[in-house]
C-alpha cells in the first residue's frame, strides 16, 4: 500500500483586508454605494430613514427612536409649547430647532449634542436587519448649518459596535422588541434611579422602545438598560422562547409568577451542547455585572 505523498491543494484563504471591507458593505450595501457616489437624498428602510447630503448622513429618523423634540421636551430643556410654536413656523424638525437656536432658546452645544445622539440613536434602528429592500429618493436635502454630518462608515461602525455591546451585556435579542415582563429574583441588586424608574414602568405590554419614548430617553440607552436589568434577572421578554438552534432561554432561576413564558416547557430534545451555551451565557452575565 502506498501513501499519497502529494500535498492536497491548499484551501482557499480569505484575504482579511478584503473581507473586512466587504463586511462593511454588509450592513447596507446600498448605503455604502450611495456614500461612495456622494449621493444626496433620502434612504427609506424598513425601520426608518436616513437623510444623506453629499454621501454623508445629516439626519436619521425611526419610529422606534424618540426624535429631537421628544428628547428636548421630556426633561424640560424646552417646554412643549415653545417647541410647538417653533414647529408651526418651520417646515420640519430641524427647521424648528434652528428657529429656537436663533431665538436663543437653545444653546448651540445642546442642539449639536442632541442632534448627534438622536441621529446615532435612530440610525441604529434604521440599519437593523430588514426584511424589505431599501429605497433611495435622490433629491435636495435641507442641509443644516450648525449641525454636524456623520460619515456613513463611522455610522455603520458604531452601529455594529452597539450591537456587539448589547450582545455582550446579555445575549437575548428578543429584549429589544418583545413586550417586557418583570421577573422575581432571589437577591435583587441595588439599582440606579434611572433603571429603577425604567423597571417600575415594565408592565407586560410595553416594549423597550415604548418605554424609551414614554420616558423621553434615547432608545439605544434604554436597550442597554433593559439588557442590564435582564442580566440582573429582573426583566424578561414576554412570549415563548424561539426554537433552537439559538435557544435564548432564561437562565435557571426560581419559579416566578410569570408562568405565561413557560407553558409546560419541555426542554428541547435536540440541543448542540447545553453546557457550553449555559456556561457562555453565565460568563456573559457575570461580566455584565
Amino acid at each position: 500500500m502506498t501513501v499519497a505523498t502529494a500535498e492536497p491543494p491548499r484551501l482557499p484563504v480569505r484575504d482579511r483586508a478584503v473581507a473586512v471591507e466587504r463586511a462593511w458593505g454588509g450592513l447596507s450595501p446600498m448605503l455604502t454605494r450611495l456614500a461612495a457616489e456622494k449621493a444626496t437624498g433620502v434612504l427609506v428602510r424598513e425601520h426608518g430613514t436616513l437623510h444623506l447630503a453629499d454621501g454623508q448622513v445629516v439626519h436619521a429618523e425611526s419610529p422606534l427612536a424618540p426624535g429631537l423634540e421628544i428628547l428636548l421636551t421630556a426633561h424640560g430643556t424646552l417646554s412643549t409649547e415653545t417647541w410647538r410654536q417653533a414647529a408651526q413656523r418651520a417646515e420640519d424638525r430641524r427647521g424648528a430647532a434652528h428657529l429656537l437656536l436663533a431665538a436663543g432658546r437653545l444653546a448651540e452645544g445642546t442642539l449639536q449634542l442632541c442632534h448627534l445622539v438622536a441621529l446615532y440613536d435612530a440610525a441604529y434602528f434604521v440599519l437593523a436587519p430588514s426584511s424589505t429592500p431599501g429605497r433611495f429618493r435622490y433629491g435636495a436635502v435641507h442641509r443644516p448649518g450648525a449641525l454636524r454630518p456623520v460619515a456613513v462608515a463611522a455610522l455603520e461602525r458604531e452601529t455594529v459596535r452597539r450591537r456587539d455591546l448589547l450582545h455582550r451585556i446579555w445575549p437575548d435579542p428578543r429584549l429589544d422588541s418583545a413586550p417586557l415582563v418583570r421577573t422575581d429574583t432571589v437577591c435583587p441588586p441595588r439599582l440606579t434611579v434611572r433603571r429603577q424608574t425604567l423597571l417600575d414602568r415594565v408592565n407586560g405590554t410595553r416594549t423597550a422602545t415604548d418605554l424609551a419614548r414614554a420616558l423621553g430617553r434615547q432608545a439605544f440607552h434604554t436597550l442597554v438598560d433593559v439588557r442590564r436589568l435582564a442580566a440582573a434577572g429582573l426583566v424578561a421578554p414576554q412570549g415563548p422562547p424561539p426554537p433552537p438552534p439559538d435557544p435564548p432561554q432564561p437562565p435557571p432561576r426560581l419559579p416566578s409568577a410569570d408562568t405565561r413564558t413557560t407553558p409546560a416547557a419541555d426542554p428541547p430534545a435536540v440541543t448542540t451542547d447545553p453546557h457550553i451555551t449555559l456556561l457562555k451565557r453565565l460568563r456573559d452575565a457575570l461580566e455584565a455585572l
Partner: protein
Amino acid sequence: MPGIDECLLQAMRLPGARGAALVDWTSGLALGTVGDAPAGDHETSAAEAAELARLAAEHGAFTADDADADAEHPPVEDVIVSNRTSYHLLRFVDTGFDSSVFLHLWLSRAEGNLALARIRLGEMAERLVLG
C-alpha cells in the same frame, strides 16, 4: 455660544493638553475629538474611558448622597486618573436632556496643571450646554 468643536478646542488651549474628546458613556461613542488619543485611536480611547465613567456613575459608592433624589443631574462631577506621565480628567456634562456624556481631557503631567484644568473643564462643560 460654543458648539462641540469650539468647546474641545478651548480645552486643548489648557497648558499641557494632549487630547480631548466628548464621549457618550452608555454607548462608548466619541461625539467629538481633537488632538491625540491616549489609546492610539479615538474610538478605542472613548470606549475605554466610557467604561470607567460608567462604573463611577452607576455605583453608589462614588455618587453624590442626594443622587437618588436628584436623578436629573449627573451623579458624579469628575473622575481623575493620574499616571507617571499624564493626567486624565473626565468631566460629566449636565445636558438637561436624556444623555450620558462627559468631556475627557488628556493632560501631560510635566506641563499640565490639574487643579486649573479641573476648574476650566467644569466651566466649559457648563458653557457647552448653557450657551
